[in-house]
Protein backbone atom coordinates (compact mmCIF):
# COMPACT_ATOMS: atom_id res chain seq x y z
CA UNK A 1 0.00 0.00 0.00
CA UNK A 2 1.39 3.39 -1.02
CA UNK A 3 2.39 5.78 1.75
CA UNK A 4 0.74 9.20 1.88
CA UNK A 5 1.99 12.51 3.25
CA UNK A 6 -0.32 15.35 4.23
CA UNK A 7 -0.04 18.42 6.47
CA UNK A 8 -0.50 17.75 10.15
CA UNK A 9 -2.83 20.69 10.65
CA UNK A 10 -4.48 23.62 8.87
CA UNK A 11 -6.53 26.61 9.96
CA UNK A 12 -9.04 28.48 7.86
CA UNK A 13 -12.03 30.78 8.25
CA UNK A 14 -15.72 30.31 7.68
CA UNK A 15 -16.77 30.88 4.08
CA UNK A 16 -13.31 30.19 2.65
CA UNK A 17 -12.37 27.42 0.25
CA UNK A 18 -9.97 24.94 1.83
CA UNK A 19 -7.55 22.82 -0.14
CA UNK A 20 -5.72 19.94 1.52
CA UNK A 21 -2.96 18.39 -0.53
CA UNK A 22 -1.74 14.83 -0.16
CA UNK A 23 1.37 13.35 -1.77
CA UNK A 24 1.57 9.69 -2.73
CA UNK A 25 4.70 9.27 -4.83
CA UNK A 26 4.55 5.47 -4.88
CA UNK A 27 0.96 5.14 -6.04
CA UNK A 28 0.37 1.99 -8.09
CA UNK A 29 -1.57 1.65 -11.32
CA UNK A 30 -4.55 -0.03 -9.63
CA UNK A 31 -4.69 2.36 -6.67
CA UNK A 32 -7.52 4.78 -6.02
CA UNK A 33 -7.28 7.90 -3.84
CA UNK A 34 -9.84 8.10 -1.07
CA UNK A 35 -10.55 10.72 1.57
CA UNK A 36 -12.25 10.18 4.92
CA UNK A 37 -13.43 12.75 7.47
CA UNK A 38 -13.51 12.16 11.22
CA UNK A 39 -15.28 14.32 13.78
CA UNK A 40 -14.42 14.02 17.48
CA UNK A 41 -16.04 11.02 19.16
CA UNK A 42 -17.16 9.56 15.82
CA UNK A 43 -15.82 7.00 13.38
CA UNK A 44 -14.33 8.11 10.05
CA UNK A 45 -16.76 8.90 7.24
CA UNK A 46 -16.10 8.38 3.52
CA UNK A 47 -16.02 11.70 1.63
CA UNK A 48 -14.82 11.11 -1.89
CA UNK A 49 -12.79 8.80 -4.09
CA UNK A 50 -11.09 9.24 -7.44
CA UNK A 51 -8.61 7.75 -9.88
CA UNK A 52 -7.61 10.67 -12.12
CA UNK A 53 -8.55 14.23 -13.15
CA UNK A 54 -11.45 15.61 -11.13
CA UNK A 55 -14.27 14.15 -9.08
CA UNK A 56 -17.00 16.23 -7.46
CA UNK A 57 -19.84 15.35 -5.14
CA UNK A 58 -22.14 17.27 -2.83
CA UNK A 59 -19.46 17.53 -0.15
CA UNK A 60 -16.12 18.10 -1.88
CA UNK A 61 -14.03 18.00 -5.02
CA UNK A 62 -10.94 15.90 -5.59
CA UNK A 63 -8.27 17.02 -8.04
CA UNK A 64 -5.72 14.51 -9.29
CA UNK A 65 -2.96 15.55 -11.73
CA UNK A 66 -1.92 13.36 -14.64
CA UNK A 67 1.03 11.78 -12.81
CA UNK A 68 -1.26 10.91 -9.85
CA UNK A 69 1.60 11.47 -7.39
CA UNK A 70 -0.49 13.92 -5.43
CA UNK A 71 -4.10 14.89 -4.94
CA UNK A 72 -6.00 17.85 -3.50
CA UNK A 73 -9.21 17.71 -1.52
CA UNK A 74 -11.17 20.92 -1.96
CA UNK A 75 -13.90 21.95 0.48
CA UNK A 76 -15.94 24.89 -0.80
CA UNK A 77 -17.12 27.60 1.61
CA UNK A 78 -16.29 25.82 4.85
CA UNK A 79 -18.26 26.28 8.03
CA UNK A 80 -17.38 25.68 11.68
CA UNK A 81 -18.86 22.19 11.38
CA UNK A 82 -16.14 21.22 8.90
CA UNK A 83 -13.63 21.21 11.75
CA UNK A 84 -12.40 17.61 11.70
CA UNK A 85 -9.49 15.34 10.82
CA UNK A 86 -9.20 14.52 7.13
CA UNK A 87 -7.42 11.33 6.04
CA UNK A 88 -5.96 10.73 2.59
CA UNK A 89 -5.70 7.05 1.67
CA UNK A 90 -4.38 5.21 -1.35
CA UNK A 91 -5.68 1.72 -1.94
CA UNK A 92 -6.45 -0.89 -4.54
CA UNK A 93 -10.21 -1.11 -4.99
CA UNK A 94 -9.92 -4.87 -5.25
CA UNK A 95 -8.12 -4.95 -1.89
CA UNK A 96 -10.47 -4.56 1.05
CA UNK A 97 -7.73 -3.18 3.27
CA UNK A 98 -6.96 0.51 3.88
CA UNK A 99 -4.22 2.08 6.00
CA UNK A 100 -4.79 5.36 7.83
CA UNK A 101 -2.01 7.88 8.48
CA UNK A 102 -2.27 10.65 11.06
CA UNK A 103 -4.45 12.81 8.85
CA UNK A 104 -4.80 16.60 8.67
CA UNK A 105 -6.48 18.40 11.54
CA UNK A 106 -8.55 21.16 9.97
CA UNK A 107 -9.67 23.91 12.30
CA UNK A 108 -12.25 26.39 11.01
CA UNK A 109 -12.32 29.75 12.75
CA UNK A 110 -15.29 32.15 12.88
Amino acid at each position, binding site marked *: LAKTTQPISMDSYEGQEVNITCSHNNIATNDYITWYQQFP*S*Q*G*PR*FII*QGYKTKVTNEVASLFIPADRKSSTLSLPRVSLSDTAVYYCLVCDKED*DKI*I*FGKGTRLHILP
Partner: protein
Amino acid sequence: EAGVAQSPRYKIIEKRQSVAFWCNPISGHATLYWYQQILGQGPKLLIQFQNNGVVDDSQLPKDRFSAERLKGVDSTLKIQPAKLEDSAVYLCASKNTDSPDAQYFGPGTRLLVL
Protein backbone atom coordinates in the same frame (compact mmCIF):
# COMPACT_ATOMS: atom_id res chain seq x y z
CA GLU B 1 -30.54 2.40 6.35
CA ALA B 2 -29.23 1.79 9.87
CA GLY B 3 -25.54 2.35 10.40
CA VAL B 4 -22.94 0.25 12.17
CA ALA B 5 -23.89 -0.22 15.82
CA GLN B 6 -21.38 -0.64 18.63
CA SER B 7 -21.68 -1.14 22.35
CA PRO B 8 -20.80 -0.12 24.90
CA ARG B 9 -19.85 3.44 23.97
CA TYR B 10 -17.55 3.81 26.98
CA LYS B 11 -15.79 1.38 29.28
CA ILE B 12 -13.43 1.88 32.20
CA ILE B 13 -11.57 -1.11 33.61
CA GLU B 14 -8.48 -1.82 35.64
CA LYS B 15 -5.41 -3.42 34.14
CA ARG B 16 -5.47 -7.20 34.01
CA GLN B 17 -9.27 -7.22 33.77
CA SER B 18 -11.05 -8.45 30.67
CA VAL B 19 -13.44 -6.55 28.42
CA ALA B 20 -15.60 -7.28 25.37
CA PHE B 21 -16.93 -5.04 22.65
CA TRP B 22 -19.85 -5.78 20.36
CA CYS B 23 -20.49 -4.72 16.77
CA ASN B 24 -23.52 -5.07 14.53
CA PRO B 25 -22.60 -4.17 10.93
CA ILE B 26 -24.87 -2.75 8.26
CA SER B 27 -27.26 -5.43 7.05
CA GLY B 28 -25.87 -7.39 4.13
CA HIS B 29 -22.27 -6.22 4.55
CA ALA B 30 -20.07 -9.27 4.28
CA THR B 31 -16.81 -7.61 5.30
CA LEU B 32 -16.27 -6.48 8.89
CA TYR B 33 -13.25 -4.75 10.40
CA TRP B 34 -12.04 -3.92 13.89
CA TYR B 35 -9.68 -0.95 14.31
CA GLN B 36 -7.83 0.48 17.29
CA GLN B 37 -7.43 4.26 17.38
CA ILE B 38 -5.04 5.71 19.93
CA LEU B 39 -5.46 9.40 20.73
CA GLY B 40 -3.91 11.60 18.04
CA GLN B 41 -3.39 8.80 15.56
CA GLY B 42 -5.30 7.30 12.68
CA PRO B 43 -7.18 4.03 13.09
CA LYS B 44 -5.06 0.86 12.96
CA LEU B 45 -6.57 -2.32 11.55
CA LEU B 46 -6.69 -5.18 14.05
CA ILE B 47 -8.70 -7.81 12.20
CA GLN B 48 -10.76 -8.23 9.04
CA PHE B 49 -13.56 -10.75 8.54
CA GLN B 50 -15.18 -11.87 5.30
CA ASN B 51 -18.50 -13.39 6.42
CA ASN B 52 -17.44 -15.52 9.40
CA GLY B 53 -13.88 -16.18 8.23
CA VAL B 54 -10.76 -14.22 9.18
CA VAL B 55 -9.08 -12.54 6.20
CA ASP B 56 -6.33 -10.66 8.03
CA ASP B 57 -5.39 -10.67 11.71
CA SER B 58 -1.70 -9.92 11.28
CA GLN B 59 -1.81 -6.86 13.57
CA LEU B 60 -3.97 -8.41 16.28
CA PRO B 61 -2.00 -9.02 19.53
CA LYS B 62 -3.18 -12.59 19.78
CA ASP B 63 -1.77 -13.17 23.25
CA ARG B 64 -4.47 -10.92 24.67
CA PHE B 65 -6.91 -9.97 21.90
CA SER B 66 -9.46 -12.25 20.28
CA ALA B 67 -12.36 -11.66 17.92
CA GLU B 68 -15.12 -13.73 16.45
CA ARG B 69 -17.97 -13.42 13.99
CA LEU B 70 -19.70 -16.74 14.42
CA LYS B 71 -22.76 -16.34 12.20
CA GLY B 72 -21.24 -13.90 9.74
CA VAL B 73 -23.19 -10.94 11.15
CA ASP B 74 -22.42 -9.58 14.65
CA SER B 75 -18.89 -9.60 15.96
CA THR B 76 -17.22 -9.37 19.35
CA LEU B 77 -13.70 -8.21 20.19
CA LYS B 78 -12.25 -9.27 23.53
CA ILE B 79 -9.19 -8.17 25.47
CA GLN B 80 -7.93 -10.43 28.24
CA PRO B 81 -6.02 -9.30 30.23
CA ALA B 82 -6.04 -5.58 29.46
CA LYS B 83 -2.93 -3.41 29.70
CA LEU B 84 -2.64 0.33 30.19
CA GLU B 85 -1.57 0.77 26.56
CA ASP B 86 -4.86 -0.73 25.38
CA SER B 87 -6.59 2.55 26.25
CA ALA B 88 -7.99 3.66 22.91
CA VAL B 89 -11.14 3.88 20.81
CA TYR B 90 -12.13 0.59 19.20
CA LEU B 91 -13.90 1.12 15.91
CA CYS B 92 -15.93 -1.37 13.94
CA ALA B 93 -16.51 -0.90 10.22
CA SER B 94 -18.29 -2.85 7.51
CA LYS B 95 -18.26 -2.89 3.76
CA ASN B 96 -20.53 -4.13 1.02
CA THR B 97 -18.56 -6.37 -1.33
CA ASP B 98 -20.68 -5.23 -4.27
CA SER B 99 -19.95 -1.55 -3.61
CA PRO B 100 -16.29 -1.40 -2.71
CA ASP B 101 -15.84 2.34 -2.49
CA ALA B 102 -16.19 2.87 1.23
CA GLN B 103 -16.03 1.37 4.65
CA TYR B 104 -18.81 2.45 7.02
CA PHE B 105 -17.70 3.03 10.58
CA GLY B 106 -19.56 2.80 13.85
CA PRO B 107 -19.21 5.41 16.62
CA GLY B 108 -16.58 3.38 18.45
CA THR B 109 -16.09 2.20 22.01
CA ARG B 110 -13.81 4.36 24.13
CA LEU B 111 -11.79 2.17 26.52
CA LEU B 112 -9.84 3.50 29.47
CA VAL B 113 -7.58 1.07 31.32
CA LEU B 114 -6.49 2.25 34.77
